[in-house]
Every structure is written in structure tokens, then in C-alpha cells.
């Protein structure tokens, strides 16, 4: 079984400041890794994903994440946030090689302030 830990339930940050949202996972098998964003009253939207290859992946809206196998982490970063980035962010994993169900973390609420 897989599990995902997002230690920070809320992250307040000022506009134009950098931000890092932390994600650690546990799995006995190889996994794919994802970050989803949920804006208020909207569905989940894929930000980025790691399937294989380069451990640094770039996503939409200027976000990027780095897969670190030894630390079982997949932290999400953005060098300069905007008010419009205020949302709930979910880290998720799925097993490689079939069975596409996602296991999600509990989410991190990013609040960008002026």
C-alpha cells in the first residue's frame, strides 16, 4: 500500500515570495507522483507529474517539483507566487505498471497575501 504525507496543512506567504509545499510518500513498489490543485468551488486540476526520466519536472503556472527517491519526497516549488495561486494543493501517488488509482495526501492550503 502507498501513503502520502503533507505535513503543512496551511502555508501563508506574501505575494511575489517563493514557496515550497512539502510532500513525502511511502511505498513498497515504484510509484508515479502527482500534484493537483483545487481552486475554490472547482474540480481538481493536474499541476504536474513525475513518471520517469528527469527528476525535476515543470508544470503549469510556473510550478515545479523535484523527485528525490532517497528521501521519498516530491516537494512543490514556485519562485514567486501570485494572489491567484491561493488554493488547496494535493500530492498524490499511484503504482507504476497498471492500477491507476491515486492515493492522496490531506492537502496544503496555500494562502497568498498582499
Amino acid at each position, binding site marked *: 500500500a502507498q501513503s502520502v504525507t*503533507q505535513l503543512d496543512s496551511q502555508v501563508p506567504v506574501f505575494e511575489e515570495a517563493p514557496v515550497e509545499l512539502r510532500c513525502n510518500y511511502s511505498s513498497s513498489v515504484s510509484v508515479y507522483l502527482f500534484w*493537483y490543485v483545487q481552486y475554490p468551488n472547482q474540480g*481538481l*486540476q*493536474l499541476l504536474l*507529474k513525475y513518471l520517469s526520466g528527469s527528476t525535476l519536472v515543470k508544470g503549469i503556472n510556473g510550478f515545479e517539483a523535484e523527485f528525490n527517491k532517497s528521501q521519498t519526497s516530491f516537494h512543490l516549488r514556485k519562485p514567486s507566487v501570485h494572489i491567484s495561486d491561493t488554493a488547496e494543493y*494535493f500530492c498524490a501517488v499511484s503504482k507504476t505498471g497498471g*492500477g491507476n488509482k*491515486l492515493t492522496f495526501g490531506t492537502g496544503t492550503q496555500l494562502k497568498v497575501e498582499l
Partner: protein
Amino acid sequence: GAGVSQTPSNKVTEKGKYVELRCDPISGHTALYWYRQSLGQGPEFLIYFQGTGAADDSGLPNDRFFAVRPEGSVSTLKIQRTERGDSAVYLCASSPEDRGNEAFFGQGTRLTVV
């Protein structure tokens, strides 16, 4: 094009009643997933369809929950004898055959059992 559509967006029902939640996936997507998101939690997997058949129903909490996808497109999640603990947002997602690890989510159905 149209995204994943879920109806109704909100459903209030009395304890003990039967409810049906509908999901219209993106046209041509062969994989369909149901998740449940309780307040303050990440989405939890319920069931996964590949075509018409349930490939993995290991997340269904008990036999009051059932889902069908008779023609390989629209899916219905059915909950019998609803309980107050069933109150949550029920999310549907679909994936195309050739990108099985990217799930596109609907906006969800908020179910409240009173």
C-alpha cells in the same frame, strides 16, 4: 471540449434514503474513477472502471455502496440506506486509454445526509 460532468452538484437527503450520483466522463475516455473527499481530507479512492467492468472496487466502504457503468461511458454511484457519515464530496475522474496516469476530475457532488 467538455470536461467531466457530475450531477447533481448538491444533494441533501434524509438518513436511510437511497441516492444516485451521476458522472459523465470526457468523451472517449475508457477509464473512470470515483473518489470521496471528506471535510479537511484528501480524496479517497472508491472504485475504478476500465470500460464497462469494475477493475478495482477495493475502496468501496461497505455493501451499501455500488457503482455501474453499463455502456462504458456514463457511471452511476448508488448509495443505499444513507448514513450521516456518508456526507462528503463525491468526485469522478476519467482518463484516456493512452495516458492512463493522468486523471481529469469533475467538480464533484456534495452529498449531505441529515
